[in-house]
């Protein structure tokens, strides 16, 4: 990867992957995704010396950065909303682990929200990197920094959940 040694050439990395990263981040976070995609490249530039040049494809590395930024974004928003909620003495929010998912699922739309309901955030990340990031299992493992076996089990469950949803929907349509 030339950009590791040549900062100017890092722009080529931007040109190559900006459309895909922009689409991925905006699908996840709406308009804020645009800023997160841009931030991905700034972070990647700062960390470029840590990139393993034996990898031919920079996508897993870039998507991995995007995922971390998205997770931080949703975590921060959840915190802010929790503060506002408490301040306004509004209704009690259920303390379930899917709170960040609530926010994200609003952006995903009703169909995806139903299909992905019940998945852990780890499973959701693996699934969306597979489907929207077009990454293979080994690449997802690189992006999320987990063993391939872990990715396999997360995707097995996530894909089965989506397939169940499609089956249910299909049955419903035929009734």
């Amino acid at each position, binding site marked *: 990867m030339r950009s590791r040694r040549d900062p100017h*050439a890092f722009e080529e990395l931007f*040109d190559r992957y900006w*459309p895909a990263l922009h*689409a991925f981040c*905006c*699908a996840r976070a709406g308009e804020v995704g*645009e800023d997160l995609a841009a931030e991905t490249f700034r972070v990647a530039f700062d960390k470029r010396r840590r990139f393993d040049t034996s990898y031919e494809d920079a996508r897993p590395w870039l998507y991995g950065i995007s995922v971390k930024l998205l997770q931080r974004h949703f975590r921060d928003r959840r915190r802010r909303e929790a503060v506002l909620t408490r301040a306004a003495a509004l209704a009690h929010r259920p303390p379930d682990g899917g709170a960040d998912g609530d926010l994200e699922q609003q952006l995903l739309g009703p169909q995806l929200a139903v299909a992905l309901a019940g998945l852990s955030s780890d499973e959701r990340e693996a699934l969306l990197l597979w*489907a929207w990031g077009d990454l293979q299992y080994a690449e997802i493992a690189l992006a999320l920094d987990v063993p391939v076996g872990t990715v396999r089990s997360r995707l097995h469950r996530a894909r089965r959940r989506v397939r169940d949803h499609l089956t249910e929907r299909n049955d419903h349509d035929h009734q």
Partner: protein
Amino acid sequence: MITSERDWLVREQPHSVPLDPTATSNAREALRAHIATERRARPRPRRRRLAAAVVPIAAAAAVLVAVLVIGAPSSHVPQPQGAASPTASVAAPAHAPAHAHAQQSVLVRVADHVRAQAQPAGNATLVMRSTSYPGKPAITVADLYTDSGQYFFAQTRDALGAQISAGHNLADGLFGRKVAIATDAATGDVTADAERMASAAAPSHPIPRRITVTPAMLKAAEEKGGTATSTGLFDNWLWGNSQDALIAGSGDPQVRSGVLRLLATLTDVTVTQTTTDGQPTLTLTAGYPAMPQGYQEQLIIGADTGIPVKFLGGNPAKPSVTVTYDVTRVSTGDLEAGH
């Protein structure tokens, strides 16, 4: 009907924020600014000192090296690596920009002229690339694009031989794809090739020629100080990718001819006859809508050869980056042998 879960997920992927040229350019500019900031904040003195020490030796060696200069301009003298990049700015236009159609005709005429030029000797194109930011010394690096699609990079020309010998080919197919499209465009259907070139980075996500500008897009663009247009996105990508092809294929008259034909399809690019360092040149200027308002890029090419000479980007009155290209044809064998 049950479809595959992946197909379904892809179909359901929200696309509420379309890719537009303003966002793209803003993000690219932010990255450039970030890179420039890092250069100022965290210089690497050890490497620079080493480079400085190597320069006199390398420069002396470079004088001895037989280099095959591309094309016609006999006055073109290869710059030794590490030498200061030319600082003379582009001379004032010889005449005011003509009508868009006439400008395109100029490019097509040069493209036809270049296409008839003989393939130069050597088996690779060496581009000594000097990048400078305002108030900072230029940084020169060596890019080597072989005719077989390999790409080697080194801080200096002399260091390229070791990279070739070690097989450090850094090509990943992208520049080769752009060069191939440009080659096709030299004689083929330039309209279709323009679409291929605009989408060369991600052919599976083709860039549409026209996008529908929604009120939300307009509002978002205005908040960022720009205006959304229906054609800006396509023109932006065609302009950028064509330049990449021109750099990587600068040693091949067919590639240069194809790029000029592709650029001639961009009606929002102006062409001006100029003089750069005493040589006749053409300055191609891309501004709004291919670029965001207040930002423009200029590509300066040899008037007779189409060989890239210089690139300037930023505020029209004050470029934030200047890149100078010194293009020569070489033999990889000579480089490996230290010649």
